[in-house]
């Protein structure tokens, strides 16, 4: 397989603090790739750099060979890399369907003149069909007319992913998708992710809890204190001495 | 030329004095309550009319009139806190609109009580402190400068050295944490509002004999105060004072050497540039906005 998404010598400094230090790894097309590490390892910073939320201090992010580092979030999104947010970041005042419709912004780019005259009927129909498809995929279609802010926590997380999915992404970046979910919801969510993978979507997810994603990821990159630590399949990572040390050491520090 | 520069400098110091009295009050209110008091210019106007009524019409001694005016405007501030800002404390835009409503009421009361024409007050003193033949500072202006120095020093002492001041600063920085520490938000809001209003009132009262008092005089005052608090950084008292001085000098010099409208354009442009370059103001780290 080709180098689909590659992070090369990525570095981020906040003032004197180096949050991410010359990190490199590759994500293969069509895989589920986990980025793990103890608290403060720089996972979320890395994630924010890939999605365009931060501009890296040094290094490159290559998507199909094109350097996308330093692009704005919407420019990264338009190249097919769409992120979700930690917590339940949604358009709480809008309905579930409207949330998903915002997700179709890229495939069905609104045109103001067509909208005034009424020549965008097909686009609107297409956008709504896609939005409903995305909701259906995440089992939210029956809630389409509800206010997003009124949904249960689990449904809000699912809607966050549906919004991302509605835009036909090549890569979905998931920021701690299992936080606050009970085991049943987690299991259900993992099933959905596998189906996304079958659709040909590449998933890069950031997770603090190592156990949660062991059964899900094809490849796992582990980082610690901003640096690359280890990479490999789940079994490999689980038994990697440096990873065990990082997690236990981290736990000891926390305790 | 040197004399003209010196005289303009003195004028600028006078302008800086009353501007900073108004701006510091505005910052204090914004800091503690998070609300933009659009009626602040009308509080200044109310102070001026207090002097018109007491000193010019009823012949009360000038400084007694000023003191009563200051207390009266402070009470107006308490009224605003009680009637408007406390009920609307979770609705900043509502607080702004309510203060605009209050502004209209005060203006209207001034028109009904005193008429729309400008009031000219008999001068308190004609004395001038002469430095040279051409450079002098009218004593009436000196009063304003002295008042600014005294009241701002007192405020500084109050904020840094007393328990109330500590509570005030704490609730300006983080109202929730302050509440957890047992600081009464209502109490601090009342104090801030009283002080903020009273400072605007005393500025208006002292400048009343020097300007033409009219019901719409608050407008230019509030515009100036906005410029100053933006340049100084919303929420920073020291910034507001420094910005008052800077603005007063720029404005006075441009007015003297070119014209007043151009001075206004320059002042507003400076503010816009500061907003563009550093949206939190030159001295500010405003996290309330």
């Amino acid at each position: 397989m080709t180098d689909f998404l590659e992070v090369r010598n990525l570095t981020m400094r906040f003032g004197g603090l180096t949050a991410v230090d010359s990190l490199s790894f590759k994500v293969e097309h069509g895989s589920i790739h986990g980025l793990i590490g103890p608290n403060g390892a720089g996972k979320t910073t890395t994630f924010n750099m890939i999605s365009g939320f931060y501009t890296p201090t040094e290094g490159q992010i290559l998507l199909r060979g094109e350097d996308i580092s330093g692009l704005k979030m919407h420019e990264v999104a338009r190249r097919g890399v769409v992120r979700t947010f930690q917590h339940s970041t949604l358009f709480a005042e809008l309905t579930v369907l409207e949330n998903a419709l915002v997700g179709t912004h890229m495939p069905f780019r609104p045109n103001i003149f067509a909208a005034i005259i009424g020549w965008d009927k097909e686009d609107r129909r297409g956008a709504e069909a896609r939005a409903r498809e995305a909701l259906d995929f995440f089992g939210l279609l029956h809630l389409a007319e509800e206010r997003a802010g009124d949904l249960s926590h689990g449904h809000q997380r699912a809607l966050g992913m549906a919004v991302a999915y509605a835009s036909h992404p090549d890569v979905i970046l998931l920021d701690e998708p299992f936080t606050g979910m009970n085991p049943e919801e987690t299991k259900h969510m993992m099933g959905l992710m596998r189906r996304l993978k079958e659709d040909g979507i590449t998933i890069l997810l950031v997770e603090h809890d190592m156990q949660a994603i062991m059964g899900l990821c094809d490849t796992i990159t582990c980082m610690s204190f901003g640096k690359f630590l280890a990479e490999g399949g789940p079994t490999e990572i689980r038994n990697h001495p440096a990873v065990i040390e990082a997690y236990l050491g981290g736990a000891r520090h926390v305790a | 030329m040197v004399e003209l520069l010196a005289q303009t400098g003195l004028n600028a110091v006078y302008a800086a004095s009353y501007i900073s009295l108004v701006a510091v009050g505005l910052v204090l209110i914004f800091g503690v309550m998070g609300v933009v008091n659009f009626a602040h210019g009308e509080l200044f106007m109310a102070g001026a009319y207090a002097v018109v009524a007491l000193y010019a019409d009823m012949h009360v001694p000038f400084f007694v009139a000023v003191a009563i005016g200051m207390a009266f405007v402070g009470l107006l501030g308490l009224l605003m806190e009680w009637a408007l800002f406390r009920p609307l404390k979770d609705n900043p835009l509502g607080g702004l609109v309510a203060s605009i409503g209050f502004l209209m009421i005060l203006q209207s009361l001034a028109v009904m009580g005193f008429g729309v024409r400008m009031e000219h007050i008999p001068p308190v003193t004609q004395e001038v402190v002469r430095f040279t033949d051409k450079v002098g500072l009218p004593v009436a202006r000196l009063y304003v400068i002295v008042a600014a120095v005294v009241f701002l020093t007192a405020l500084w002492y109050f904020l840094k050295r007393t328990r109330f001041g500590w509570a005030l600063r704490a609730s300006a920085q983080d109202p929730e944490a302050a509440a957890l520490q047992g600081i009464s938000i209502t109490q601090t809001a009342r104090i801030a509002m009283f002080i903020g209003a009273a400072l605007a009132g005393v500025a208006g009262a002292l400048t009343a004999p020097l300007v033409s008092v009219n019901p719409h005089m608050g407008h230019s005052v509030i515009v100036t105060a906005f410029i100053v608090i933006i340049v100084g950084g919303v929420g920073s008292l020291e910034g507001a004072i420094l910005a008052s001085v800077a603005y007063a000098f720029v404005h006075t010099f441009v007015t003297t050497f070119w014209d007043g409208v151009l001075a206004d354009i320059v002042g507003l442009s400076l503010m816009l540039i500061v907003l563009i370059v550093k949206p939190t103001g030159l001295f500010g780290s405003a996290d309330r906005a």
Partner: protein
Amino acid sequence: MRNLLIFVLGSVALIALPYGLSFSQQEILVFLVINILLVTSYRLMTLTGEWSLGHVVIMGVGAYASALYTKELGIYVPVSMILGGVTAALLAVLLSFPLFRMKGFYFLIGSFAAGEIIRLIWKRFREPFGGVRGISGIDPMPDFSIGIYQFDFFEPVSYYYFAGVIVIASLWVLWRIEKSPVGLTFHAVHWQDKLAQASGVNLRAYRTLAFAIASGFAGLAGALQAHYVGTVNPNSFDIEVMVFVLTWAIVGGTATFYGPILGCIVLTVLNEIVLREMGLEQARPLIYGAIMILSILFLPDGLESLVQKVTRRRSAPKPEEKAAT
């Protein structure tokens, strides 16, 4: 069918409206119609979450531009009105570069400063803006006839019809925009700009778009006013007028399309007609201010929340009826 009936009745009512009014009330009606466009365009701007204090000055830009186009270039009045709106929109695009570096409170103050600078430029430069006195003797709208009705623009009734048609057409366009995917994107930018951006929305572009559209229609409203009054000057677009626009929007409520319109109509009728009739000329600002305070204290969601309560109560017992209409 029901909609058609409402449409016909509404049109008849709007056409008949000026005949029950005195001359001065007819003049107020013309301004009311223009102000409805002004406040509705303002609301479009607030959809993206930014509140401007420069909207009335932008309206003035349209007024000045249209006045100058007819005076200096001899452009036919209706064309220059549209060009006035276009000028205001283009200026908004220019202003968006400095202003959209700011958000929230800072944008509010920044837009105020930008507006004041424009006003001071009008004051300072007598060529071509006429200084403090502004421009007078602006060409009126030329009279014309549409067969059944002879437009005579010295009559406020004629101008009411003319402005009314333009305003209704503009409101229709604004309504279409809001109900379109573009409008949805404006809402998205307001409620969660980060998530909108992650969905590929160019925030700057959409904020600028809303600002430009709102400014364009405000400019058109200004042009309508300029060619009716015949003069423009810097003080007719000062912060006090902006305060009125702000209070119409807030007292009416900005959650719905009709909220600001409702606020504009109710407060104008109250201020210009009821209080004037009661002979409370001097106390007008006082009562107006008190009403503003009371409505913000006791009706924080605006007049529209009252309407919503009434309509909801009516439709609540029969939800299936609501679905059918």
